[in-house]
């Protein structure tokens, strides 16, 4: 019997990296490799790195060392943003077999296949393409991402990504629609539109709203969620698209700070006032629209007053979840050279305040959803026939079912909240209810 070669993966950083790893897992699976957990001995270990902060660099380096120590005879393939940022340095390290930048990431399988066939190529010798990833088939997720864009031109002062991921590029519409059709054919029910800065999509005269409209027109029983979005440049059409039944009424809109002064120092492309007007405008049309966000605490020069403005803003915007980041210095960014860096203790305490606020706002939002119907995409069904998944508003929901089929939609009336460290909505399958 042929012994399959084992491949392990480790992903650090953003959702885009996760999507690209999922696609690589699919490619290796299709090519006949056996996927094993990271930490197990493997013939190939692929580490999809992140370099967004100095801490990310440390984590990425530790992961590389860990992989090399576990499988000293195996290939170690380092890809992702760190591979772009420190290419030469990483290439000089003996424990790393291949350093593959983001341009060539989609071609890792052919590189590794070639290696085992005795054809050793430098990654730059294979054809590069930011969008040429396999359609995700073998995945633990019920939702999959569709990458429409890469790179960013915004140059926020805290962010190294434009220097690493490169200039904004948009995937041609035909490729996107082909990808959508294939993942829908593969049985995915929820597609997450993703990229580095998807709001800046621009190709062949089509903007972000235009491409979203085309994706929504693709036939099939699926819904579309938008991954993290920068709050600038929305047109009226964007708001209107949310009346489409396939588009989930949820946006992860990155605030970063509620202080106008800090937003200017971050060189964000919007004001706090504009952000709030956007939130209010959405909620006028869809009152239970779910907004979640990212907030950075401890940006250089952030005073107590600035932080209070952020807390106040978050309360008024009623975010159902806040992903809090302690500001982390990144060499090579403008913010790293700014005076008035905030002490770690202050950042910790501010981070804790935001976390508490986030928890209470989340419970408030969940309370407001009791009695409403959600179309839940079932991800798991336990032995006791307890189904769990997410509704269109991106709240976790649990309910009893008489059908243990996963990856299907169920209409559920929300009846309460199961409190805990990670509160969950509980509900009743409306089809069961109507039969009684």
């Amino acid at each position: 019997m042929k012994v399959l070669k084992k491949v392990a993966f480790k992903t650090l950083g953003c959702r885009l990296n996760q999507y690209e790893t999922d696609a690589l897992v699919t490619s290796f699976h299709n090519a006949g490799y056996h996927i094993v957990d990271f930490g197990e001995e493997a013939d190939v270990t692929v580490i999809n790195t992140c370099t967004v902060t100095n801490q990310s660099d440390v984590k990425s380096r530790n992961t590389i060392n860990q992989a090399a120590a576990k499988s000293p005879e195996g290939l170690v393939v380092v890809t992702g943003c760190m591979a772009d940022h420190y290419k030469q340095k990483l290439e000089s390290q003996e424990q790393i077999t291949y350093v593959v930048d983001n341009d060539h990431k989609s071609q890792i399988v052919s590189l590794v296949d070639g290696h085992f066939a005795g054809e050793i190529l430098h990654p730059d010798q294979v054809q590069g393409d930011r969008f040429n990833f396999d359609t995700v088939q073998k995945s633990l997720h019920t939702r999959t991402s569709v990458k429409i864009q890469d790179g960013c031109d915004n140059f926020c002062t805290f962010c190294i990504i434009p220097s690493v991921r490169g200039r904004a590029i948009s995937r041609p519409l035909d490729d996107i629609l082909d990808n959508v059709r294939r993942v829908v054919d593969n049985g995915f029910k929820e597609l997450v539109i993703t990229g580095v800065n998807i709001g800046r999509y621009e190709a062949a005269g089509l903007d972000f709203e235009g491409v979203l409209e085309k994706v929504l027109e693709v036939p099939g029983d699926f819904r579309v969620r938008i991954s993290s979005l920068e709050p600038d440049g929305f047109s009226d059409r964007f708001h209107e698209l949310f009346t489409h039944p396939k588009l989930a009424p949820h946006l992860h809109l990155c605030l970063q700070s509620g202080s106008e002064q800090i937003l200017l120092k971050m060189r964000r492309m919007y004001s706090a006032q504009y952000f709030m007007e956007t939130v209010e405008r959405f909620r006028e049309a869809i009152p239970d629209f779910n907004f979640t966000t990212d907030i950075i605490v401890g940006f250089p020069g952030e005073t107590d007053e600035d932080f209070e403005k952020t807390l106040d803003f978050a309360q008024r915007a009623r975010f159902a979840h806040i992903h809090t980041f302690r500001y982390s210095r990144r060499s090579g960014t403008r913010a790293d050279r700014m005076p008035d860096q905030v002490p770690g203790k202050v950042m910790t305490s501010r981070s804790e305040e935001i976390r508490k606020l986030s928890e209470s706002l989340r419970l408030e939002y969940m309370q407001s959803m009791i009695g409403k119907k959600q179309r839940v995409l079932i991800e798991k069904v336990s032995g006791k026939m307890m189904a769990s998944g997410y509704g269109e508003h991106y709240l976790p929901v649990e309910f009893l079912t008489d059908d243990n089929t996963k990856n299907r939609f169920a209409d559920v009336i929300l009846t309460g909240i199961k409190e805990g460290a990670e509160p969950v909505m509980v509900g009743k399958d409306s089809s069961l209810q109507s039969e009684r």
Partner: protein
Amino acid sequence: MNTTTAVDQHIVEKVRNLNSSTYILKFSRGGLEFTPGQHLNVGKKGSGQHREYSIYSGSDSDSIELLIKEVDDGMVSNQLRNLKRGEELSVKGPYGFFLTDIRPEKGEKLLFIASGTGIAPFHSYIRSNPGANYRIIHGIRDMDEAYDPEDYKKGRYFTCTSRGQKGDFHGRITDYLLSGAEEPADKVYLCGNSSMIYDAMDILRASGYRHDQLFTEVYF
């Protein structure tokens, strides 16, 4: 908008000193295309250090010009000032979206508000669009920071001097805006330090400007 990264050679043509701390760095264009308001990442070739500078020259000019203020203990601005004709630069970009919302064909009335070297993108815009309907309010300490005032049409360039007694208005930009003497515009673009922009935005909003009429670019 052009989004290609320039990879061609950029050779220093001239360093023109404007005052003790500010100068214009002029270099060969090398095929670089840009939209007024965009900036470049520039450093001495091989130094490994780059800083962002807005383009000062017009989009049709043969060379690229940057308006640069030397920073005390700065690494790049001092190095660039000492470059000689014929030396090579490392140039990345152009980047940014500032001023890209202007529709010159609509004849919009534009108000440009700048502090210090924040005037660079407006200079580039006016050089590229000589027929534009604009007015510039330039916040400076003294008149030696009024860079190339002759490049603007008569009556379109207005200085607010915070230290010297010369200039069109003695005081800060914000004092001038609060005086209510400036006529309303269709769009207002602000470029300069974040404190000026923050204060000016408050005043402009209070005087009735909507957020979609206000655009900012922060200089550090």
